[in-house]
């Protein structure tokens, strides 16, 4: 009912991790917020607190955000120990204060992982994800070199499953939620998306080996199959893709070990 949704307010305290720089010591600081609308989004509450801090001459809380509709993957808080907060299948920016109770102390921390070094307050550097994609998360097709789109039929089931995997927004919640700070779900999503499609087949083995090697080199942890990642994922991407990644990786490793390789990889005569 509309009535239940109007003019309802609550008071909460944000206990926010403040850290001026990677080298500086960090600590929790409490920011009470009284009588705020339950319809306010969680990030809007930080906006409001930041405006207050600014006027008081204090430094506002640095936090990552952009689209505020759950698709860009920029927002990245851990709220009460849960990446992206209490909701299921949503990002921090889609969290509304009505998910909390009056009087709650809400602990807000940055995503924590060695591969995501802290920048400031709640902001971390997730460039490691870009580096993993750069290592192989693509199909090598030059612009203009593509055949007609319908020349490559894709079974609907494969296309749908690839889309499930492709929904990843690269936010890093999987890493933040994993007790091992593993990036397996992120890597699995991309490897599966491209591995499910015919377009991804020529580079399939190379892709999975390169992306996993890069992931390991960047200092992410290993998967111990607890599936906290998929539970925290704002796009609810299934950890089934991790099994698929493992399978692909094993097969690719075996093939890489035994497949004969041409001695000449160069082009034609000059």
């Amino acid at each position, binding site marked *: 009912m509309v009535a239940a949704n109007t003019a309802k307010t609550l008071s909460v305290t944000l206990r926010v991790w403040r850290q001026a720089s990677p080298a500086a010591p960090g600590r929790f600081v409490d920011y009470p917020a009284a009588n*705020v609308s339950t319809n306010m989004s969680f990030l809007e509450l930080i906006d409001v607190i930041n405006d207050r801090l600014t006027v008081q001459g204090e430094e506002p809380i640095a936090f990552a955000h952009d689209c505020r509709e759950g698709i860009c993957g920029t927002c990245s808080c851990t709220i009460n120990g849960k990446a992206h907060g209490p909701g299921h299948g949503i990002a921090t920016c889609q969290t509304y204060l009505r998910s909390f109770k009056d009087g709650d102390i809400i602990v807000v921390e940055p995503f924590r992982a060695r591969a995501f070094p802290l920048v400031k307050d709640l902001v971390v550097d997730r460039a490691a994800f870009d580096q993993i994609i750069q290592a192989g998360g693509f199909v090598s097709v030059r612009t203009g070199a593509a055949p007609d789109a319908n020349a490559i039929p894709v079974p609907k089931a494969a296309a749908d499953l690839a889309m499930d995997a492709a929904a990843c927004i690269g936010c890093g919640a999987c890493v933040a939620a994993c007790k091992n700070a593993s990036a397996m779900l992120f890597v699995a999503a991309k490897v599966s998306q491209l591995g499910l499609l015919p*377009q991804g087949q020529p580079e399939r083995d190379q892709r999975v080996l390169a992306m996993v090697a890069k992931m390991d080199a960047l200092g992410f942890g290993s998967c111990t199959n607890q599936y906290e990642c998929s539970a925290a994922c704002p796009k609810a991407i299934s950890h089934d893709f991790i099994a698929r990644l493992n399978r692909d990786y094993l097969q690719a490793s075996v093939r890489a070990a035994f497949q004969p390789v041409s001695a000449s990889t160069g082009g034609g005569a000059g």
Partner: protein
Amino acid sequence: MAKLDSKVPSGPLADKWRKHKAEIKLVNPANKRKYEVIVVGAGLAGASAAATLAELGYRVKNFVFHDSPRRAHSIAAQGGINAAKNYQNDGDSVYRLFYDTLKGGDYRSREANVHRLAEVSVNIIDQCVAQGVPFAREYGGLLANRSFGGAQVSRTFYARGQTGQQLLLGAYSALSRMVGAGAIELHANSEMLDLVIVDGQAKGVIVRDLITGELSRHAADAVILATGGYGNVFNLSTYARGSNVTAIWRAYKRGACMANPCYTQIHPTCIPVSGDYQSKLTLMSESLRNDGRIWVPKRKEDRLKPPGAIAEADRDYYLERIYPSFGNLCPRDVASRAAKRVCDEGRGVGETGLGVYLDFADAIKRLGEAGVRERYANLFDIYHEITAESAYQVPMRIYPAVHYTMGGLWVDYNLMSNVPGLFVLGEANFSDHGANRLGASALMQGLADGYFVIPYTIGDYLAGQAPGSRPSTDAPEFQAAEDHIRGQTTRLLGIKGREPVSHFHKRLGKIMWEHCGMARTQAGLEEALRLIPALREEFWANVNVPGSAATLNQALEQAGRVGDFLEFGELLCLDALKREESCGGHFRDEYQFPDGECRRDDARYGHVAAWEYQGAGQAPLRNIEPLNYEFVKMSVRNYK
């Protein structure tokens, strides 16, 4: 006075692009690596351009203010992407897509540009599919299509409700491939703050590293801006919070002309504002209007009553009443303005009074709740998440919001601005959409510009530049630009006034929305032109930007952007004031047909208005590029 030569090639419409490609100059493969190109932005246009230019052999530097190129707001586009593939065998063709886009743009775009867009649309789909974009498919494994507003054929390709995301990730993967290959130097967290002009040509940028605060100079043989639209001048919009006008505005202040800034598109079905803390408006797909009925109470007194308590006889289904033939499916702008009118009359619903009901009760009666769920479950979920209301039980509340801007920097057929060496792609330029953009066309244009236009046309410019002739970053022009930015930063940090940046952004947004939003009047615009400079003055006297310039400082970033919006907003209003007609997204109350449709004035305004900066405190110059329609007759847009 800027020279505005559109450089549209001569000859029959369908041959222009082919002919142009055959005639423009090329850079030989061995020389390409001697040229450096700066690409600012990594949305659909920027990422596709950077990737493609790097594939060709150019050395590319890509700057993005986000922490990753994958975050650009292209990612939020839901609906789809048009292409004249005619896979449905329903009579589509390049000409039809061209015609629909031109007509949708209310005859305010260049024929040649739009035709080229329609031509390359088919290549885009091929390219994206080859990259592994998981478009929706039919059971036979071939691509599926859906129909979209403003077209009578099914030509829209889509990937669930996340087409923009999937296309962007495709372009991002191409970009990443070239970054991995060492062909692109990627600078994330890097905001372009100035364009450097050397000898009248764009030869570099000044960039602030948003993490360290460091300013750096970058020289290049050409600069490409693909920095998106300026809808956040309204503060509340469907844009991402970070979307801004800064890159193109600073290029404008270095001499690039700003074309048609008053062409802004309003989307009728967004979730209304719930309070003054609000930061963002969320779009609900327009498809909801297929089954929902829009109404407000007939009497003001009823507006806060629960909707169920308002009797059928006391409801005003105003779209069905005013536009009996199209009803709830009338065009976006008409529906938006009608909603504004009933709310202005005090009949708007919800706490703020800025909302109308979109009621699914009849649809549920007709299709059953399961039927409605099957069609719209995803949207109803989003609505529930944001408002905590179930649209199965109570009507949705919707209100129009800004969600795309058709104006932007002026570019010629080669996508080069009037400043040689400065190219502008995607939403940041003004081309292709005229005064109004059709659904599923934004993605098409961004990718067309980046994948299939700029890779050819930039060669024509670079071939005229001696390899290795780009200036050194020690040149005085770089020094001056850097000093200018440093000075501005110091000034912003030194004001230490009483109000946060957001305060000014909100007030600017209110002025813009009220006086230059869905319906504009001469008096309103004149009022806005009085209010904005005053607000700007107050901003520079009373804003409080805490912290330092030597670290991540989001308030400082925001202050720079809002400072630019405070200047740009004035130009937008001025452009709206001077365009004494209604067309597409620009609606002047004074110029309308009795049925509320736009009354264009082709004789006086069948042109592009390209504004030229004349210095601080000086009135900008309004240059004109006439739109010569050789192939299509400008007619009254009619969807009835």
